[in-house]
């Protein structure tokens, strides 16, 4: 692995104190077969973490989050995490065994016997959050967001979370929530812990495809919840494709009116605003993809003349190909359309697609060929693609947006602007990563992380062990790697199975993209991942089993 070349000093001392097996019965075979789960261990693994065996109680009734400035994002987050941490009761423990308010004025009385006298400094009653920068109400997460944070749970019960930006505070809150677990008596406890954390890669994404099958806003929100739990910060929304056009454009409302599956399978402007805000509050960027010139059949019905007419035996055969780069209407349309997109979506980046452009239809069309001759590149269809992409990129440039494109654009030798981000998705990705970065482009990796391809058993190992910087290159080339994305294409996925198919299989990728280089110990990851899966289940998300037989203390209940 090229990873060893980095030689970066990693301080990642983890005291795995909580390997108490959840089923520590007799030494029967079956229990050896069952994996022990950790307790109160975070996923993804922080950059630096030390923890001791000293447990502190968390007083559910007194506990507060403190912040010294007004900050909407964090106010919402405090509310959310209070529910997340204390919401689901551990019903194995009878209520009387837990904290109760005997007297309103004299809080925190433990009714059950505890092994040593309880002093106030055994109890965490607050998390003191400090954000250096000013928290802005209209702030969106971006590629430049600082997600680092420092979390201290001190032996005296004093707990602090320090971050440069609100985005780091959000990540720290998630970690804090994951450190808390129920002890054998059902009480909320946290171990004395010190964490300094920051992501290894800035771009940690998940692609969902709402064109092959529609995904409801409700399910997309649940997915954003789980993304935040896994410190994934980019929702790459492959919103439209050849099969359907669920995006409701205000400039071109006919596009969804004619090309959504039905009126119900549509994202209104209201829906999109709602999702962008929901994601923002969780520190997640939404990067929409409007893939062209291929994968755009659904754009055609509302825009006559946009798609190339395909010819068979000298006549239009009734079918359409990619967008027609020779058409008069193409570039005015694209200008208007992407102007709208740049206003609707807040992120600096738009994904422009550019994959799998078939040249057959272009080759068949006499007008396209006449145009190519006129332009001085007869029969060179890569040049035609380049012509199209260059014009498209200029349009998006003038809309003041940066762009991501799929690797084929570069593979086809289209020259693109130097700040283009190239997403690698095909086989032999190490070679491609080396080639793309050698040309000086920034790069994202997806190839090894196509989660729509399912197979029996523990497929997460291979996702976990793939590394975006595992290719032959110079340090400069490695520095061009911005991160990666897990892709769940929609051919066989809809509301019924998207969450259970994605989670926790995307979690190993989340750890690969967040945790320090060299976090490769599958066995210790497995114990943490099993706890993490059960944590997702307990919080109400249908994360499926991926490590063979076992159980979660709280099994999934459909709400």
């Amino acid at each position, binding site marked *: 692995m090229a990873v060893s070349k980095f030689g970066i000093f990693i301080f990642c001392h983890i005291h795995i104190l909580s390997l108490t097996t959840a089923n520590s019965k007799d030494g029967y075979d079956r229990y050896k*077969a069952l994996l022990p789960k950790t307790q109160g261990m975070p996923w993804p693994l922080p950059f630096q973490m030390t923890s001791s065996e000293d447990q502190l109680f968390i007083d559910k009734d007194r506990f507060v989050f403190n912040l010294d400035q007004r900050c909407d994002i964090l106010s919402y987050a405090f509310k959310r995490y209070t529910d997340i941490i204390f919401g689901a009761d551990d019903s194995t423990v009878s209520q009387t065994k837990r904290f109760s308010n005997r007297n309103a004025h004299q809080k925190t009385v433990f009714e059950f016997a505890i092994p040593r006298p309880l002093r106030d400094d055994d109890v965490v009653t607050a998390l003191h959050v400090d954000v250096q920068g000013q928290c802005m109400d209209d702030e969106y997460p971006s590629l430049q967001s600082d997600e680092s944070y420092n979390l201290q749970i001190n032996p005296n019960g004093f707990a602090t979370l320090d971050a440069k930006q609100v985005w780091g505070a959000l990540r720290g809150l998630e970690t804090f929530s994951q450190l808390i677990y129920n002890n054998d008596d059902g009480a909320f406890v946290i171990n004395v812990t010190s964490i300094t954390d920051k992501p290894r890669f800035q771009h940690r994404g998940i692609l969902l495809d709402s064109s092959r099958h529609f995904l409801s806003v409700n399910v997309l929100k649940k997915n954003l919840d789980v993304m935040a739990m896994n410190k994934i910060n980019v929702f790459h929304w492959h919103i439209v494709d050849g099969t359907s056009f669920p995006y409701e454009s205000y400039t071109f409302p006919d596009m969804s009116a004619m090309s959504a599956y039905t009126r119900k399978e549509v994202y209104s402007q209201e829906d999109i605003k709602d999702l962008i805000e929901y994601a923002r509050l969780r520190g997640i960027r939404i990067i929409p993809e409007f893939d062209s010139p291929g994968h755009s059949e*659904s754009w055609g019905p509302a825009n006559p003349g946009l798609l190339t007419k395909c010819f068979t035996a000298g006549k239009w055969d009734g079918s359409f190909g990619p967008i027609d780069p020779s058409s008069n209407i193409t570039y005015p349309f694209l200008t208007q359309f992407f102007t709208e997109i740049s206003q609707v979506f807040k992120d600096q980046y738009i994904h422009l697609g550019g994959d799998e452009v078939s040249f057959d239809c272009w080759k068949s069309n006499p007008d396209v060929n006449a145009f190519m001759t006129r332009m001085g590149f007869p029969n060179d269809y890569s040049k035609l693609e380049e012509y199209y992409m260059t014009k498209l990129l200029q349009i998006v440039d003038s809309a003041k947006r940066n762009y991501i494109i799929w690797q084929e654009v570069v593979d086809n030798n289209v020259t693109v602007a130097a700040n283009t981000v190239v997403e690698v998705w095909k086989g032999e990705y190490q070679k491609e990563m080396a080639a793309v970065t050698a040309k000086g482009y920034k790069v994202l990796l997806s190839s090894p992380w196509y989660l729509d391809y399912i197979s029996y058993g523990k497929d997460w190992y291979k996702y976990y062990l793939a590394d975006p910087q595992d290719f032959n290159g110079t340090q400069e080339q490695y520095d061009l790697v911005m991160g990666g994305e897990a892709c769940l294409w929609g051919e*066989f996925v809809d509301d*019924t*199975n998207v969450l259970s198919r994605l989670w926790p299989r995307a979690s190993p990728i989340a750890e690969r993209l967040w945790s320090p280089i060299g976090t490769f110990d599958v066995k210790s990851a497995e114990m943490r991942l099993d706890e993490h899966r059960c944590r997702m289940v307990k919080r109400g998300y249908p994360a*499926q089993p991926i490590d063979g037989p076992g159980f979660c203390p709280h*099994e999934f209940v459909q709400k």
Partner: protein
Amino acid sequence: MTNKMAGEIGVIVLFSCCLAIAICNVQQQYREKGRSVAVTQTSGMPWPMPKQMTVTTIQRILDVGSFQFLVSSSTQRCDIIDEAFVRYRKYIFGNDDRTLKFKTNRKPRHGSIDQEAYLDTLQINIASGCDGYPSEESNEAYTLMISQDASTATINANEVWGALRGLETFSQLVYQNDMGLAVINATIINDAPRFQHRGLLLDTSRHFLSLDILKENLELMAQNKFNVFHWHIVDDQSFPYESYYFPDMSRKGAYSVRHVYTHSDVKEIIEFARVRGIRVIPEYDSPGHSQSWGLAITNLLTKCYKDGQLSGDFGPIDPSVNSTFQFLQNFFLEISQVFPDKFIHLGGDEVPFDCWESNPDITSFMTMMGYGKNYALLEEYYMQRLIDIVQGLNKGYMIWQEVIDNGAKVAPDTIVHIWKGGYQDELTKVTKLGYNAVLSAPWYLNYISYGSDWRNYYQVEPLNFNGTDAQKALVIGGETCMWGEYVDNTNLIPRMWPRAASVGERLWSPMEVNSADAATSRLEEHRCRLLKRGFPVQPVNGPGFCSVEL
């Protein structure tokens, strides 16, 4: 009236004729845009395909307000059907804002729609009574008549179980026409299952499945005309069954106190299944796959040795001690009382011999019995005694194929369950020995892969093996299996459905209904139907949509 209708339509044609008509109903509007969409759907076509069906293009309208279900049988009341009416009214018309997708087809008194277009009543006639449990001898045949003009449609069945199947079919024939009305085409169906045993195995030991999920699955089974829930309730990993006589077995062997099926839970499942015409056959697998039994029952499992010392590990159940059989007698007495079905699945698969080989007491027992080193004989001895116990309790039993493969001789009425590769040869062998056979080998749905894998399950022909007609008659059916290693509440339903529907049709419909291409549009409608009824049934045919998403 029914004769009149048959006369008008002419000869009852075979199932295949209906497909041409069904294509007329395919949703056209989204294909006209010249883009690469998606699989098409039929409208009002049933799954699994009936034995004989004649469909006309004449649409009858159902009025949500006045449509009534009636039943007559030889007994005064028929609770099973009464309950079914409640369910099917909901499935046909919807019962809340989310599922009520049909316009209120209030029958116009002086309207433009011809009064005769309305179908007012479904009358169910059951020749016999409607009590009891479904069994291996249940008659599920029925006829269904929806005439072109009569106001009443009729289901005739010998037994209540056939009436249930007919009701399901009726509900599937109803669809929404272009005007948003609930309609059904005039149709004649004469239906009966091809195989008597159409089962689905769930494994609640590797992962626990909640009662709600088990019920949801039973509901879906009924909608796919499955009639056996093979409940692989316990295994090595956990023992969620709460025993009356041996309560410590779940106390010590369940994953936790929350991962237990209480007596009332089990009763509830059996009753839920019964009223849907589904048998519950529990499996208590032994002498292997029984590690979890040993936590509460000391000396039941064989102690394994290493280098002449106890290794601390345990192997299969120990056949060399009498206490084993005393326990089994008591345990299976309870099981025979708790589960009303005639059959119990006794397992018998994957028995490893190494622990038995290591144990000196077993070795002396083998010598005493004259088995020498032949551990297959020890297994046979165990199975024989277990079978004797279960026979003594007046129960029939199923066993996995290894019991026969290892040469054990079992009673002639044993049902052998075939699950390993090379199943055609195994079917030949097992039926040659004269045993009944149930096939599962090609239908392990826990093995997942990308794409439309249902086509593979669909195209299996269970009788495609070398054997005489008498041998083929011994194949009583099949079961699709969802082993639980990677399945729990979170993913069971979408992973199972509609993939299992494929097997449902294979086991119900005539042998000639075997083209996956021809079935695709109908399966797509069926998936959307199940989705509309509120079940998270996943997409299996590539890009597309349902008119009502989950």
